[in-house]
């Protein structure tokens, strides 16, 4: 089985065997959960419950707002105690009563029903970004997908949530993959997994051979997909979506594009498991597998955790020793963020909590000057020039940064990892990216205001010209022009007329240009609104009207002067 290579990458200390030795356990039911309204990419959900409402596990408590958003469900049964701008708090009644949706058979139901189910269950990508899954399932509307890749690489150190999920539910995950493959019309499923998870690989192989036996019966299924398992070498960041696709299929996802542009859809095993549970069992997304690890806890391992459980409670249950604790990191040690407070709930995207001691993940030594050694460049999986980016990011040369493709950076942290001067490179890139994003928004806002201002000026000018014309017309009716100085007047008018004609032609051209720009933009992006371009067109039209009015007025005056 060929495995292709992405450039760069590093080999890391894995530290996975702390959490992958013990089986998957259920965390105790929390007494209280706090469910943030924004646990996903896009708009926060809108609460649809009030304080003191009784809820059950799986009750809808907040509805998605707009297209890119996700529903939110109660993760314990009990009473809503607080609904704030950002979160809903529920106190448990300890009964754990479920309110599940009716089960569906994904082999027979039609696509719309299944997509609706994913939507109503609030399913989002559990790998980290939290992108709403129902949108991803509709991808077939715009793109032709031929491959679904299941990203079980889990390349960051410490994290073993997908590993354990695959060991315990290989069949369920592969069935979930088939649901998604059916929805997006993929012909084949490729599962990629790093070679440091032998147990998960074994479990997957067993599950796949079972599937083959089922598939051998010709009657069993009308949509048959070809499933392959690819074991890849352990190298960070092989689990990055682009790197993963490169490694598995030898395809490059275009910069700024999506895997769908090259006919690939990528899903995390945890998401697929949740998808199956949503469809088969009617269970909304209310719990997930979280890796609890680090030297500061005595019972590391993987747990099914209800969303909204306080991280502090969770870690204490896993035997947190507070004196040992240096910091808690959400996510992996490479891309995760340290928590400033433990009073934070577990969210849909929380895949790992590392309670690290100081010796385990020490603070970075003091940063020294960049000596341009190029170590960062040789490990960058996107082939950027991290050290050039670092210089320009600190100098705030934003144009140069974009020329050096800053936005292609996946923030994997490989460069920071190898930097001999301990420069927090990724931190620089993140703040530079955010700075540029804010700047773009501000520029767009300023442009918008400018166009509105120009439109207003044009409108005022047009109204002025029309008023002038009306006044002139009235004056013409009242009194005949005097004969004196007629010759010089008409000469001046001639000149005036010519410049007005030129102005009118220019205005016409401007209108045509604006129309063309708008039409092109509309053709490129039919779903987007082009308010600014429309304003610009309206401005050009106003200008044309003003020019027209002035011209006709001048012509009328001319005619009056010549006729008598």
């Amino acid at each position, binding site marked *: 089985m060929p495995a292709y290579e992405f*450039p760069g990458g*590093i*080999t*890391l*200390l*894995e*530290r*996975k*065997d702390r959490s992958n030795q013990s089986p998957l356990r259920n965390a105790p039911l929390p007494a209280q959960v706090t469910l943030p309204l924004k646990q996903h990419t896009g708009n926060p959900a809108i609460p649809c419950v009030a304080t003191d409402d009784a809820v059950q596990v799986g009750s809808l408590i907040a509805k998605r707002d707009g297209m890119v958003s996700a529903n939110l469900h109660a993760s314990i049964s009990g009473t809503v105690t607080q609904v704030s701008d950002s979160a809903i708090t529920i106190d448990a009644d300890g009964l754990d009563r479920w309110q599940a949706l009716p089960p569906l058979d994904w082999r027979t139901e039609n696509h719309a029903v299944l997509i609706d189910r994913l939507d109503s269950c609030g399913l989002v990508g559990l790998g980290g970004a939290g992108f709403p899954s129902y949108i991803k399932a509709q991808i077939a509307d715009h793109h032709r997908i031929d491959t679904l890749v299941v990203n079980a690489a889990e390349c960051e150190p410490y994290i073993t949530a997908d590993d354990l999920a695959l060991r315990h539910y290989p069949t369920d995950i592969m069935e979930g993959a088939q649901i998604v493959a059916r929805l997006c019309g993929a012909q084949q499923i490729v599962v990629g997994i790093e070679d440091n998870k032998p147990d998960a690989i074994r479990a997957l192989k067993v599950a796949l051979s079972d599937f083959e036996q089922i598939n051998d019966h010709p009657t069993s299924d009308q949509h048959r997909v070809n499933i392959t398992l690819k074991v890849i070498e352990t190298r960070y960041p092989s689990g990055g979506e*682009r790197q993963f696709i490169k490694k598995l299929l030898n395809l*490059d*996802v*275009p*910069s700024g*594009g999506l895997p769908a542009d090259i006919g690939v859809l990528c899903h995390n095993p945890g998401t697929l498991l949740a998808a199956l549970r949503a469809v088969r069992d009617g269970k909304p997304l209310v719990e997930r597998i979280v890796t609890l690890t680090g*030297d500061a806890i005595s019972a590391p391992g993987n747990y099914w955790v209800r969303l909204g459980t306080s991280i502090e409670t969770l870690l204490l249950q896993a035997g947190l020793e507070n004196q040992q604790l240096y910091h808690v*990191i959400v996510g992996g*040690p*490479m*891309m*995760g*963020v*340290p928590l400033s407070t433990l009073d934070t709930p577990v969210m849909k995207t929380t895949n790992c909590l590392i309670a*690290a001691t100081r*010796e*385990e*993940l*020490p603070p970075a*030594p*003091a940063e*020294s*000057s960049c*000596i*341009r*050694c*190029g*170590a960062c*460049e*040789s*490990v960058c999986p*996107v*082939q*950027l*020039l991290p*050290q*050039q980016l670092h210089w320009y990011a600190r100098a705030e040369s934003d144009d140069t940064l974009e020329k*050096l*493709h800053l936005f*292609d950076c996946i923030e994997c*942290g490989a460069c920071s*990892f*190898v*930097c*001999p*001067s*301990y420069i*927090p490179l*990724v*931190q620089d890139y*993140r703040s530079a990216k955010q700075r540029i994003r804010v700047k773009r928004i501000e520029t767009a806002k300023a442009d918008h205001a400018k166009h509105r201002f120009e439109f207003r000026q044009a409108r005022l000018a047009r109204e002025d010209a029309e008023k002038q014309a009306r006044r002139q017309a009235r004056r013409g009716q009242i009194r005949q022009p005097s004969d004196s100085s007629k010759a010089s007047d008409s000469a001046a008018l001639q000149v005036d007329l010519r410049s007005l004609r030129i102005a009118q032609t220019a205005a016409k051209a401007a209108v045509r240009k604006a129309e063309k720009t708008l039409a092109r933009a509309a053709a490129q992006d039919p779903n987007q609104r082009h308010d600014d371009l429309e304003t610009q067109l309206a401005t050009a039209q106003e200008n044309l009207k003003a020019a027209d009015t002035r011209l006709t007025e001048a012509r009328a005056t001319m005619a009056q002067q010549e006729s008598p």
Partner: protein
Amino acid sequence: MSMMHASQLTAKSTNAKSLTAKTFNATPPTAQLMRWVIIATLPGLAVMTFYFGIGVISNVLLAGLFALGAEALALKLRQRSLRPALSDSSALLTGVLLGASLPPASPWWLIGIGILAAVVVAKHLYGGLGQNPFNPAMVGYALLLVSFPTYMTLWSPPQSFIPENLWAQIGGTLPASMLDALSGATPLDAFKHKGEAVLAREFWATQPLPEGALSAWRNVALAWLAGGLLLIAKRIISWHIPVSMLVSMALLATLFYASSPSHFASPFFHLTTGAAIFGAFFIATDPVSAATSRRGKLFFGAGIGALVMIIRTFGGYPDAVAFVVLLMNLCVPLLDIYTVPRPTGQPKAQQQTEQVDRS
């Protein structure tokens, strides 16, 4: 925000199994990096001492000492804290490299002036470590070469381990009349000044060099090569610059030699004399003033090799590694602009222009 750093890989971990498993492609921290380069100069220095006497050691010691002093002085004037900057050994390295390139037992004032130019002018006036556009050691060397040519050509023939007037030499009290007696030509010098009419074969037949000079230089070069290979093996430097520089030198030398073996020296001669090997592994690879991308490094090295050959063959200097490195340092910003690699997922060059046309 990366919590992990390569430096942890050397730290003791509770988990021994994962530590032993893999080879890591990580560079050591900056200070260690500098120390490794200094360590890698030892074979070269040892062989040089063997052939050219204790004067080599005195050079390196004096230069290193002066470099630390100059660094401390500059930091003091710039109101910087001394310890972090001094402990990264970058100044010491500059001193060692400059000391190694000077003729043995150079007078102390000569070394002092060179170090001042290198550390204070070339490094700190530009903003300190990481900010200097030029290779500090070579700035010092070039300044000395143009200012004190007499002293800079005192490559005495292979001689006794401790020369008789060592102290007078180092103290700079040696009368001028004695200087000429000391001066001996390097092989490159001798070949340069053989005169147009003299054919190479005739020239070598006259035995222009003292006994053993050629083999001495060759062995020194081999020792530098050993140190350089150590640096590559330890991933302190990448192979791109040394290889491209030596290959381009060898290619040009072969070309010249093939065109007229009677006038030009052989490629082997060019690679084993002068500062070719030393320059390729220790000077041109200074990361701060070299090109950054891998492609840029290849061009940078090739440019140095080509220019060295051109100056050696047609220019006024017998060897010109210092000037050439400085010249190529000048080209680095340009190289950096034109060798930006294409990130994964970015369209290829042709598609890119199409995109621009469309927009």
